[in-house]
């Protein structure tokens, strides 16, 4: 019977992938990281060359390359999170989520196939995307650590969108708002005073600190702050999927 357990999970996950593939908007969003990757890998160096010539300076964009990289690493899970949210909201509307609880897939299986598997998938995609397109990060360990953190951020965003919105339209609005929480990425670069610590509740802030300074403490803080948000949303989320 365990063999069937995995088979059901993969069937349910394929159903998730099919729904994304059938939806032009979701499909394109999942391609976005590659498009953005191409842009920073090939566009940014050209722009840098032009700008340094124009301003006759040694470097213009180079100090901010890490910011481009950080956006690259969060983009993959963000897009998958967006797709997951849209698929889950659609399934809640259609009554599928409730029905899955009375099939052999079960509620647990459903949630694994809609939250955990997509994230694992996006974690792997994120690592590949970073390896191919990253401007500054060469260390494989750092890539893995950042991809992991961004997956946790993606998980948090999915929980937020699905718990706080009643339908797909609201879901899209909340996804856009959750984009604002990514402002934490640029704060440590531009706000060099203590004021930056106003952002301690934004996991993206700790992720950027970690990328800048490489301290494990920041990595742990990022996970803990995200976990806090996730736990806060979990109850509401569970109620919704019942």
């Amino acid at each position: 019977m365990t063999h069937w357990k995995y088979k059901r999970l993969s069937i349910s996950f394929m159903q998730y992938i099919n729904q994304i593939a059938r939806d032009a908007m979701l499909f394109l969003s999942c391609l976005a990281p590659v498009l953005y990757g191409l842009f920073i890998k090939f566009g940014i160096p050209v722009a840098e060359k032009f700008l340094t010539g124009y301003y006759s300076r040694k470097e213009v964009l180079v100090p901010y390359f890490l910011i481009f990289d950080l956006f690259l690493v969060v983009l993959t899970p963000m897009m998958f999170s967006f797709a997951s949210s849209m698929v889950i909201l659609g399934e809640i509307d259609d009554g599928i989520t409730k029905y899955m609880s009375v099939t052999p897939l079960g509620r647990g299986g459903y949630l694994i196939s809609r939250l955990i598997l997509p994230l694992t998938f996006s974690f792997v995609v994120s690592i590949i995307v970073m390896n191919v397109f990253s401007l500054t990060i060469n260390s494989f360990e750092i890539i893995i650590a950042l991809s992991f953190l961004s997956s946790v951020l993606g998980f948090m965003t999915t929980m937020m969108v699905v718990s706080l919105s009643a339908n797909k339209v609201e879901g899209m609005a909340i996804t856009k708002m959750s984009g604002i929480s990514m402002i934490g990425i640029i704060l440590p670069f531009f706000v060099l005073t203590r004021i930056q610590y106003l952002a301690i509740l934004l996991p993206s802030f700790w992720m950027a600190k970690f990328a800048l300074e490489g301290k494990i403490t920041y990595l742990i803080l990022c996970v803990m702050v995200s976990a806090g948000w996730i736990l806060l949303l979990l109850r509401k989320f569970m109620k919704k999927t019942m």
Partner: protein
Amino acid sequence: MIQVVDLSFSYTRNKFLENIGFEVSEGEIFGFLGPSGAGKSTLQKILTGLIKTYKGQSIVKGIESKHFNNDFYENIGVDFEFPSLYEKLTGRENLEFFGSLYSKKLRNIDELLEMVGLKNDEDKKVSEYSKGMKSRLNFIKALLHNPDILFLDEPTSGLDPNSSRDMKNIILQEKKNGKTIILTTHNMTDAAELCDRVAFIVDGNIKALDTPHNLIMSKGASKIKYTYLDGTEKTGECLLSLTSHDKKLQELIESNRVLSIHSSEPTLNDIFMEVTGRVLQ
């Protein structure tokens, strides 16, 4: 097959389902009857393991509902009161997808579609289905994996008389095939026709539980109504069991003056009103 003992549950702090107890044996059709908001669907959600925070016992095939494991659902078929179908997929794709979640051999999808008259619409998207078509598709989705127990929440609501007739025939056929069926409805006629036993549920309590026949016999008595001319047209009434005591009726019969005579059995509807003091629907 099913044993429920001293079951209680509420969504809020206030009491709702209280003191629920009944048994359903194998091969039986058991009905929950009650007005809107009585708690019928809630009770089904408990029996199917969707709601786990109940108190008391709800045992299905020897297992407490809150402890069902995934494989248990291989043998349970559920038809919720609202359709649970992928709107963007066709009727057939829906059945194929849900069927693929079971490790058992499935029933023939063409036959099922044929049975409820959806064969010609199998390639239409569910979003293009009418309400009744969705109900029918949702219903056969519950039969797909040939479960031993069927939980049907208002399977005939929103159907035209023909589809409703077909659906009832299918339900009776499933019973013949040995399935145990738990059915929810507002419709007394359906309940009287389909159910071996019914439970009247009002405000979260079972007010009566018996076979439709016994309920009718125990509570209501058949009556005779007759009309006759006595200057103007007049009506008389007596219990069928007491006709010989009705002197007026005898006199009328002997003098051939009866204009009309009808006997009437109480319906389950009358009994429901008598027992619960409430109207259905």
